[in-house]
Every structure is written in C-alpha cells, then in structure tokens.
C-alpha cells in the first residue's frame, strides 16, 4: 500500500509536468517567448515518437554507454573501497592523502576528459577512466567515513572477545561501513552517466553522448531529448538496482523503524 503511494506522488508530478510541456510546445508558447523556431522545442509526444522510431539506434548506443558506465563504476568501486580501507588502516596515509583527494575533486571533469583521450587514445579507455574518476570520490569518501563511525567501545569489546586487527576489520568495521559504501555507490552511479557523456564527447564514435552530439549538430532535437530520456532511465535504473542491493544486503544501515517492519 505505502509502496504504491510512494510511487504515485512523483508519477503524478511527472505527468503534470509532461502535460504542461506538451501544451506549451503545441501552442508554441515557449518558442514565442524565447524567439526561436518551434521545431527546436519538441513536445513530449514528439520525443515519444522518436523513442519508438529510433529504438534500434538508441538501444545500440545505450548498450555502449551502459557498458562504459558499469565498467567505470566497477573500477571505481574496487579502487575506491581498497583506497578507503588502506587509508583507514593507516592514519599516516590518511593524513597525507585525504586533503589531496578532496582537492582533486575541484578539477573539472570536462577538462580532464580530453586530456585522457590524448593520453589513452581514442576508444573506451579514456571514457572508463573519466567515469571511474568521477565515481571514485563518493565511494571512497563514504566508505572511509563509514569505517570511521565504528564505536570505539565496540573495538574494545572485539579485542576482549579475542579479535585481532584483521578480524576486527572483517567482522566489525567492514559490515559497519557497508551501508555507507552503498550510499556512496548510489551517488556515484547517478553521476557516472554524466561522466560517460563527457567522455564520449571528448572522443568516441558511439554511445548516447556521441549520439547527442550528432543530434545537436543536425538539429535532430526530438532524438536528442529521446537520448537524454534513455540516459536518465539508465541512471535511475542503476540507482534502483543499488538501492535493492542495499535493502537486501545492508539493511542495518536503514532507519530502525523500517528495518523493524
């Protein structure tokens, strides 16, 4: 019951916005306001038509982007959690690296992407690198924070129960950090698609980002919006998948009232 109610509100809002957009586009209100050609502002119905008619092209490019996103995300997950674990276990390394990692986030990804293309060449390499880089930060920082939330009393208890440093990490710290890590992963996967688009813009012959670039140049506006829609759905889908994983394997991080029911 409550699940349907949870979905109902955003769905209704979405329909309302789409209806408003449809009318604004049909009556050329926005085009008049912005003093541009009406065909530059497609109605949702036109986007839907494009989604259907160009489904093969969209699917083909979506598949390319999906593989990039998943690949880059997995690299970031592996590197980010390892990095967090190492920094957690060594306070010296933590002091040395942590400020630099934060500072690295101020480098705009849009600048980094073309450089990666120069370094790694044209192809999937630089795209994976851009996505991994953009995903790394939320995963690493959240995991590190999660490892840091372990109650010192709990650590003492583990020692008294006979746990060594390694066992304390495996049995106490890692499970404590798991929900935090998955929170970071959810943020990461949502921004990963942005990384994929930047990566493809910098150098790629396929993928949704590449398709958008072509559509933009050719003023194929409905297909541009269709590609954007597919990209959003992909991000939301991946986010939902991670939320489901969290619910199944890291439920202790959820608010207590929910885990009780």
């Amino acid at each position, binding site marked *: 019951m409550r699940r349907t109610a949870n979905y109902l509100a955003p769905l209704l809002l979405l329909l309302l916005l789409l209806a408003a957009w449809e009318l604004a586009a049909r009556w050329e209100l926005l085009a008049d306001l912005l003093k541009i050609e009406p065909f530059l502002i497609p109605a949702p119905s036109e986007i839907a038509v494009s989604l259907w008619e160009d489904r093969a092209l969209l699917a083909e490019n979506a598949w390319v982007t999906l593989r990039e996103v998943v690949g880059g995300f997995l690299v970031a997950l592996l590197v980010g959690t390892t990095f967090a674990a190492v920094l957690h276990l060594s306070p010296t390394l933590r002091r040395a690296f942590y400020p630099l990692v934060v500072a690295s986030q101020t480098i705009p990804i849009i600048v980094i992407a073309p450089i990666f293309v120069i370094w790694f060449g044209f192809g999937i390499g630089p795209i994976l690198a851009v996505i991994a880089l953009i995903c790394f930060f939320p995963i690493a920082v959240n995991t590190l924070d999660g490892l840091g939330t372990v*109650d010192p*009393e*709990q650590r*003492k*208890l*583990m*020692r*008294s*129960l*006979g*746990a060594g440093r390694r*066992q304390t990490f495996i*049995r*106490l710290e890692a*499970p404590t950090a798991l929900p935090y890590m998955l929170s970071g992963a959810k943020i990461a996967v949502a921004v990963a698609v942005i990384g994929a688009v930047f990566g493809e813009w910098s150098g790629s012959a396929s993928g949704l980002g590449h398709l958008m670039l072509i559509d933009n140049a050719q003023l194929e506006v409905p297909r541009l919006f269709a590609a954007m829609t597919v990209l959003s759905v992909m991000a939301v889908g991946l986010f939902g998948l991670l939320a489901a994983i969290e619910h199944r394997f890291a439920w*202790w991080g959820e608010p*207590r009232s929910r*885990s*009780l029911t």
Partner: protein
Amino acid sequence: MRQTVAGPAQAPRATEPASPEVEVELELAGVRHGFGELKVIDRLDLRVGRGETVAVVGPSGCGKSTLLELAAGLSEPRSGRLSVEGVETAAGRLRRSAYMPQRDLLLPWLTAIDNAALAPRLRGLSRERARREAAPLFERLGLDGFQRARPAELSGGMRQRVAFARTLLTGKPLLLLDEPFAALDAITRADLQTWLIDALRAEPRTVLLVTHDVEEALYLADRVLVLSQRPARSLFAEPSPADRAQPRAEAVTDPAFVTARERALLALAGGEWPR
C-alpha cells in the same frame, strides 16, 4: 560480625577474599592510573578469589569503568601491580578475562545466537560449529526460541542476556561486567539480577562487577567495594549480608541488608559511619 565498622582501619582486610585458602584470580596492589594530568585511580588494592563475585560501587565518573578496562588488559596502569591468575601483562590479562561493556553492543547484522557465538567464531570455528557450541548455554540462559532473532527485535533485557551469553562463551575464567543493567527499567533490572545469580550458579565464574546502584551491588556480590570521587580510593569494603537463597524481594528487605545498604550509601556520600 564484620558488619560493625567500616572505618579506614578495617577496610583493607575486607579487600581480601572471604577465605584465605581461596586461590586469587584477580589482584590489584597499589594501582594508580590517569589520563594526562587527570588522576583517575589512586592506590587501589583488591584481591578477588576464584568463584567470588565482587561489586565495585562509586559515584559517576569515579574511574569504575577505567578499573575494568585495566583489569581486562585493554590498558596498562601507570603504576602498581595488576594480575589475573598471577599474570601481569596486558596481553595475558586480555586472554584471561571477558569484558562486558555497559551497552550491549550487539552487532545488528548478526542473529542473537551468532552474536552470542562471536568469541568461538573469532577462534576460527565455522558459523555452524560456533552456533553448536553456543546452543546449550543459550538454552540454559533462557534464550531458547530467540536464536534467529535480530538484536533490533529484542527487548533491552533480552539483549543484555545475549550480551552476557557472549561474555560467557569467551570461556574465560574472569568476567568483568560494566554496569550490565544500568540502561534497563527497574522491573527488568530486578528480573535480570535474579537471572544473573541463577546463571552464575549454573556457570560459576569469578566476577568483578561495576555498578552505581548500591542495592544491586549488595544483592549480586559476595563483597562490595565503595570507591571515592575521582581519584578513586577505597572507602568501604565489606562482605554482603544478602541471603540469595531467598526471593529477591525478601533478601533486599532483610534488616542486615538494609543496614549494609545504608552504611554503603553513607560511605558513598563521603560520610563516616559513627563508631
């Protein structure tokens, strides 16, 4: 006989085990400890014999928990001697004592039985074998039927029982209990006190118990030690007159028990019993 005067002159004698033949499990001699400039424990002497239950009572922040951490081998005292089964090193004390913290600190992702079986699991047993090792005790402690429950599904009293089972399953001879029932309501607390006495009768151990509740101390322990404000010194040390063969309600209203409680409370307030 010993319940007449609790003056400083007699206090040291009551820090000894009841009978001189008893083997000493835990021994503190002139233990001092502190953090930075702060002196927390000042020249504390205490000997706890095998199978004895000793309660330490003191005002909040007087260093009771520090005392337990020292005994547990989680830290080293600044000076003085501190040994468990004659072993003085922190690592040795850590291996011989089981510490039960104030909060239950059960791991929310493990079931009740897996929480209780944590120590066997840390010894390297498989989950199944650790569960099998924990099962009989789990039942003896009245936890049967809750094996698969998660900590979030248990009441405060049940969680504390599971935490105690976890402490016992370390298999160590000395139990160090830090205000085990402080977070519980009065009724649950009284229930658990009786329960603990039964549990210790079934699973005899040496116990050093810290509490701020004088009645709890006198009811649960063979001897009670009252500590001063920080830095903690011994103010009062006496055997408890409690008759634990009686139901709790009768044991704690017995005149000898009431007198002992008044005397301990007076000592705790910093007063001296009139001679």
